[in-house]
């Protein structure tokens, strides 16, 4: 019995150390960060009407282009910060086989349009409405801003979680053009709708 207890004691002590080492290895990581299962997979298709209405735009229309899909909303601070960068990058890559698509997330189209009127738009980009968040769900959006990069064959090759900037966006597109797969990068926090 004593021997049994002794083993119990030492055993628990050892298990405690092992457990603690495992816990320690998680320091500095973000427990909420999820690796997107879409990387390397065909991008979920969408067929969405622009914010102001009209004929729907579908992902298939852009096969052969590099497509950058960004989810945004006016209530998202980081989205506002990155908006100018997205617009300028869309303009810069306008005739180079790169299409930027911005999709409104959890927001009524009139609200998004009002925001875009002040924040600016790129003539080369598309601004679409996502009723029922079906596309956001298909892309596994946890919060915004999230930006997905789809290569010419329609495979998701990159994802930026958090606020991006022109250099990151442009460099990622450059990398895809060279045939690389940038993967997932976290640049900052994402937001949920304030009344969630």
């Amino acid at each position, binding site marked *: 019995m004593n021997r049994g207890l002794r083993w119990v004691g030492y055993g628990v002590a050892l298990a405690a150390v092992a457990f603690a080492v495992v816990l320690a290895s998680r320091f500095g990581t973000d427990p909420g960060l999820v690796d997107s299962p879409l990387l390397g997979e065909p991008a979920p298709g969408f067929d969405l009407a622009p914010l102001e209405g009209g004929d729907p735009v579908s992902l298939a229309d852009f096969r052969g282009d590099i497509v950058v899909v960004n989810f945004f909303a006016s209530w998202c601070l980081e989205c506002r910060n990155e908006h100018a960068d997205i617009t300028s990058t869309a303009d810069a890559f306008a005739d180079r086989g790169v299409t930027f698509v911005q999709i409104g997330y959890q927001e009524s189209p009139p609200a998004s349009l009002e925001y875009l009127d002040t924040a600016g738009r790129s003539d080369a980009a598309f601004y679409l409405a996502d009723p029922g968040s079906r596309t956001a769900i298909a892309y596994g959006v946890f919060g915004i801003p999230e930006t997905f990069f789809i290569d010419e064959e329609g495979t998701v090759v990159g994802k930026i979680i958090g606020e991006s900037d022109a250099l990151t966006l*442009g460099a990622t597109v450059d990398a895809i053009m060279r045939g690389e797969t940038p993967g997932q990068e976290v640049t900052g926090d994402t937001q949920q709708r304030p009344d969630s």
Partner: protein
Amino acid sequence: MSERLRNLITVALLAIMATVLVLLVVTSPSESDRVEAIGARIKCPVCQGESIADSPSQMARDMMALVSERVEAGADDEAIVDQLLASYSGAVLLDPPASGATLVLWLAPLAAVALGAGVILWWRRHPSPEDSPASVDVGQTPARRLAPLLILAGSFAVIVVAAGFFLQDRDGPASGVADLAGQDLDDVSNDTMEAVIAANEDHPEVDGMRLALAERYYEEGDFSSAFPHYLAVAESSNATQPQAVTALIRLGWMAWQGNGEAETALDLLDQALSIDAGSETARYLKAQVLWCGTAEDGEAARLLEEVLSQSDLEEDVRAFVSADLEAIRAGEACA
């Protein structure tokens, strides 16, 4: 009534009541809402730990609407769950599947119960020798045994903490918006640089990037793309002197080389010289324009002499400057 009969009646009564109760419960109409059941298995991605069935957030309700639609379309439970997992990964499953990595979670409780029961039964069978009162010398033991104990425990603690720091997965969030000043721009395309510049027009350090991009265009011979950037740098109040000078020189030379506008070129080169009087490049180029453009050979020669009088001029530069000077003095037309 005898005790036995009473017991018998009691047992019978208990049995009957229990049976009726179980039957009542088991046959009760349970409205199993498939949509709710599926929803209860999926975690709402924008909330803390709630299922999409429970969460009031808009995203959860949208996801429930999707589930609802798929149920009505005839999809089976697993297919619907798999569809959501394909988008979000297994991290949104609230109920770990009974397979693979999470099989442990299903087995461990059972193992724990079995272990506990086993230990108790074993202890029952192998009791310790009868009470031996603590026959240990109280005075001696604590001191001898405790110190190494504490050292042992303390060192474990240190090891753990150290291990934690070294094993840290340092994939924390990257820095925010790119710092224009310190980026390695070799891999970056012109379009990207255009985008960055356009997005950061008010940034105090954007001129460096403009200049870099403009130089690229210039070297490619794409003067029309280079022009606006050089112009912006030349007019910028944030540009450093060397930057402004470079821009003006380039502008001047492009005006002459590209459009043959000698007057404009001279004006720009003079501006450059007014900022940096010692700029040999400006002098040289101005001399070229004067010689080839406005045919003011004398002024051109004088400028070239000023260039040659610089003591820190490189040999090959000195060579062609001298050659040009000779050509001018010889009255040759410019080549």
